[in-house]
């Protein structure tokens, strides 16, 4: 039943770009905005997998999202080629401007799409592995882990702001031209990116559900509710926490990689701590530990945000705060809890 509902919603969403392509009343704006929400939903899902199941509350998941976005951004920059304003055959505009003579080594390979996509997975994954290993091994949990991840995204933001990082400084990357031979600013490219995001979301949801329903899902619940007890049952919980944290960071990386070509820009503000906090609010709002709830939360909060920022831009943040307080007080299990109670 639940599977049918999800499939139905996914098919309905898939219709949006099709209607746009055939000129049947769906505007470009709607396709781009909903495409963005799909990426946010993947991010929310990734947070829920770590937080809702294993109890690892990361307040820095935006960093993994941004890193995935930067990997895609680097690929898109390389594809601009000689079409930049300085017309340099290889170097992106910002490098010419800063007087670079040749491409820095860490840009090598990014002209290849498969390589860039691999990096969008591996860089967030490797960072999560490193941070996770150090933190979990020293038994850093709860609030301390949350603060640590928040500090991580903040530090990365400051680093990416620097021009000498060779990653575009505070302007980041923009003016993208094409992806996989397709000009980006066309309805077809928008539709394909939308469908790719929808497919990625469905894939991540399937993956997450498969974990949640397996014994691993129950081990993760055990980690959340009684990690010490689980260790006496013979589970080396470090492994399970690392596994879910790295997987979750990779999902966030995919989300970021799909997000960047749709919004046409990536810059260090994507690392700002507020972004990560907001994503956690989506999960709490939708209902943590349910996966579907995280997706629902990402959609509803962002729909609310898009609507409110156009009708009442000044009060949007207050409404978000009020909604969060109301949900934590009145709906401890989030929107999904409300829906399930009704049934």
């Amino acid at each position, binding site marked *: 039943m639940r599977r049918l509902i999800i499939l139905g919603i996914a098919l309905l969403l898939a219709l949006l770009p099709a209607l746009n392509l055939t000129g049947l009343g769906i505007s470009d704006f709607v396709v781009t905005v909903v495409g963005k929400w799909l990426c946010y939903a993947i991010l929310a899902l990734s947070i829920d997998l770590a937080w809702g199941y294993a109890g690892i509350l990361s307040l820095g998941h935006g960093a993994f999202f941004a890193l995935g976005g930067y990997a895609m951004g680097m690929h898109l920059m390389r594809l601009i080629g000689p079409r930049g304003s300085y017309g340099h055959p290889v170097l992106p505009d910002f490098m010419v401007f800063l007087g670079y003579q040749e491409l820095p080594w860490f840009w090598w390979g990014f002209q290849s799409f498969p390589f860039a996509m691999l990096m969008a997975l591996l860089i967030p994954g490797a960072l999560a592995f490193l941070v996770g290993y150090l933190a979990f091994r020293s038994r850093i949990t709860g609030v301390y882990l949350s603060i640590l991840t928040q500090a991580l995204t903040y530090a990365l933001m400051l680093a990416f702001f620097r021009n000498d990082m060779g990653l575009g400084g505070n302007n980041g990357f923009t003016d993208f031209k094409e992806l996989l031979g397709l000009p980006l600013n066309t309805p077809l490219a928008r539709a394909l990116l939308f469908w790719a995001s929808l497919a990625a979301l469905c894939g991540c949801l399937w993956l997450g559900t498969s974990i949640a329903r397996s014994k691993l899902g*129950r081990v993760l619940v055990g980690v959340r509710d009684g990690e010490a007890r689980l260790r006496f049952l013979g589970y080396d919980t470090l492994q399970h926490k690392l596994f879910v944290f790295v997987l979750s960071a990779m999902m966030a990386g995919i989300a970021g990689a799909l997000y960047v070509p749709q919004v046409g820009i990536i810059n260090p503000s994507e690392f700002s701590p507020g972004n990560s906090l907001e994503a956690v609010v989506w999960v709490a709002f939708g209902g943590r530990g349910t996966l579907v709830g995280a997706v629902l939360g990402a959609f509803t909060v962002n729909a609310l945000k898009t609507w409110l920022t156009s009708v009442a831009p000044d009060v949007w943040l207050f409404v978000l705060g009020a909604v969060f307080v109301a949900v934590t007080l009145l709906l401890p299990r989030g929107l999904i809890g409300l829906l399930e109670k009704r049934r």
Partner: protein
Amino acid sequence: MSGRALYVDGVSVVFDGFRALNNLSFIIEPGELRAVIGPNGAGKTTMMDVITGKTKPTAGIVKFGDVDLTRLDEPRIATLGIGRKFQKPTVFDALTVFENLELALKAVRGPIACWKWKLAAEQRDRIEAVLREIGLSERGQDLAGLLSHGQRQWLEIGMLLMQEPELLLVDEPVAGMTDQETEHTAALLARIAGQRSVVVVEHDLEFVRALNCKVTVMCEGSVLSEGSIDHVQNDARVIEVYLGR
């Protein structure tokens, strides 16, 4: 059964200058059932912490067969075949009774292996057999959070059984149980012992008598007396520090 003995030799544990264990030594033979009694703060729980890797001893030797336990962490000691029931029952409230037993079941432990793992028919039978043994057949699909105190204690013992350990450490299994529940638990433990070594910490002397086994009396972190229940109950030093009060 092959069976390994547990050697605890000259173990001391010091917390901020306080000696919780003080040159503690004893041996548990393979298949032996042993009761450990002693006043509050005697170091009984700390002794279990040391054996299961939660606390590292400041000095002394802890060996299971010829494996040095002081070098291993909790999960490794558990997979080696040493299971533990805590003084305060800790089961996973958000999981069902069946799922609690399934988590404890001797099977794969790594993340990817757990993801792929499927419960085999004979494993399901085993879980159901243990459910019957601990008297919770009807409650398999209920959340563990809904169980009564006594039932939680049994679920913990059931989880121990699922691990198929060679050595079980059971900390105060009948605390807070009714007389009938206590009787049931004594029978359960007696049935378990014989196939495996069991160490039971308990204050309830009636219960210890019902276990009908060798008794170790601990006091201030060391062994005060050891022998049959009648022997220790008549030991003058034991009467002074413990029974006489």
